[in-house]
């Protein structure tokens, strides 16, 4: 019975993420708007700190994750904007889709967009800031774990804000304090990777993994009541 429920949840998640990827393919919002915004943030950081190139290099891990968080807000707003126009949210409620499946599908969609953004931003900091990491595996694992946590939290807070008229301004206020642990752990792990001391970085990956598991679990159980209230 539990296997069937899990299978149904994953099938619904696949449907939702497939639909979201198709929407992005058609609209190109991430490619044409969010990605340029993320790169602009990197460039503005460089303008602000360029007089002292050393500071820019030292601050690369933190600036990278700040750029990811700012871009994430736009990705979440976009992910839920398509669900709140022309009665789509009612259609979701009336559907047979498992709410947990919708949550996982939205999280997967947001996560895939974030991964693309992170790869481009990583290339950006390497080129613009001249920072090269030594621990490649640590960088990849940090990105994957942080993305999972950000996507899960984003999917949850996205639906929470979806039904509100002030959602565009409320979402950053709700989200940024919640994802502060990802900023801290991601920055610390990246700092270790850039400083060639990966051993310290893996500890922070543990925190990122715990954050991801926590928000995935909360989302699976809390998404349905939040969808009801949105």
């Amino acid at each position, binding site marked *: 019975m539990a296997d069937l429920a899990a299978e149904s949840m994953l099938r619904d998640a696949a449907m939702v993420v497939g639909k979201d990827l198709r929407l992005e393919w058609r609209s190109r919002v991430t490619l044409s708007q969010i990605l340029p915004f993320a790169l602009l943030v990197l460039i503005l950081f460089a303008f602000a700190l360029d007089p002292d190139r050393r500071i820019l290099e030292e601050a690369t891990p933190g600036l990278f994750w700040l750029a990811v968080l700012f871009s994430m807000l736009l990705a979440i707003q976009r992910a839920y904007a398509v669900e709140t126009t022309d*009665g789509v949210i009612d259609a979701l409620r*009336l559907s047979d889709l498992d709410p947990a499946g919708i949550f996982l599908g939205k999280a997967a969609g947001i996560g895939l967009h974030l991964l693309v953004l992170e790869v481009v931003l990583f290339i950006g900091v390497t080129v613009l800031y001249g920072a090269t990491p030594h621990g490649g595996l640590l960088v990849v694992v940090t990105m994957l774990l942080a993305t999972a946590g950000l996507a899960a939290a984003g999917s949850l807070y996205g639906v929470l804000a979806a039904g509100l008229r002030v959602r565009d301004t409320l979402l950053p206020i709700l989200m940024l304090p919640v994802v502060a642990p990802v900023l801290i752990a991601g920055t610390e792990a990246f700092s270790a990777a850039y400083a060639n001391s990966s051993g310290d970085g893996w500890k922070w990956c543990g925190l990122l993994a715990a954050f991801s598991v926590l928000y995935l679990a909360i989302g699976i159980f809390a998404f349905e009541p939040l969808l009801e209230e949105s």
Partner: protein
Amino acid sequence: MDAVVRFRAAVCLLGRFPALAGVDLDVAPGEIVLLQGPNGAGKTTLLRACAGLVPVTEGQADVLGVDLVADRRPVRPMVGLLGHATGLYDDLTVVENVRFWSKAGRSKRADADAALARLGLDGRLADVPVARLSAGQRRRTALAILVARRPRLWLLDEPHAALDQDGRDLVDGLMADAVAAGATVLFASHELDRAEAVAHRSVTVAGGTVNGLLAGSAQEVPVG
């Protein structure tokens, strides 16, 4: 036979205001029932309550054997609602929207394709993004989803709105087909001549105002 819809002194609060207060309504299986009444009377709220989208906070409300006061969610997969909004993704094509929402309602792909054909959407419109459709074409697409899902209770809010003459005739045909297939139809309309021609009976929802200060009570009126 048990009523498909059975409301007794049902109350729906929108915020602090009663959009419906003390509604009594019975709809028997296989009926086509017209809801009529002025703007703000509570027709849309009544349809949304039947769909389990707004809570019935007091009284008794049973739809398809589901007690909406206790838990309104189980009724949702069994009903089909066409509201003022169409519930379509603008950047998906007509066929993608109909297939997605049909699959989300556990219907087969063949049902979705048959519905597209029934609504005349299987030709050049099939691959057009919904954002480029006229209001009437969007309405047809939403109706195709309803047809594909084969709900036991059709809830239609102004189903003839935005449609041309052919589309309006098609809606009347769809309602007749649905009832012939064993479903029940509850719909709201201001186009009384056309609506009364297709309905088995009509019910007036009266007493409401736009700000919901007064309640809607359903009063049966014979058609014709």
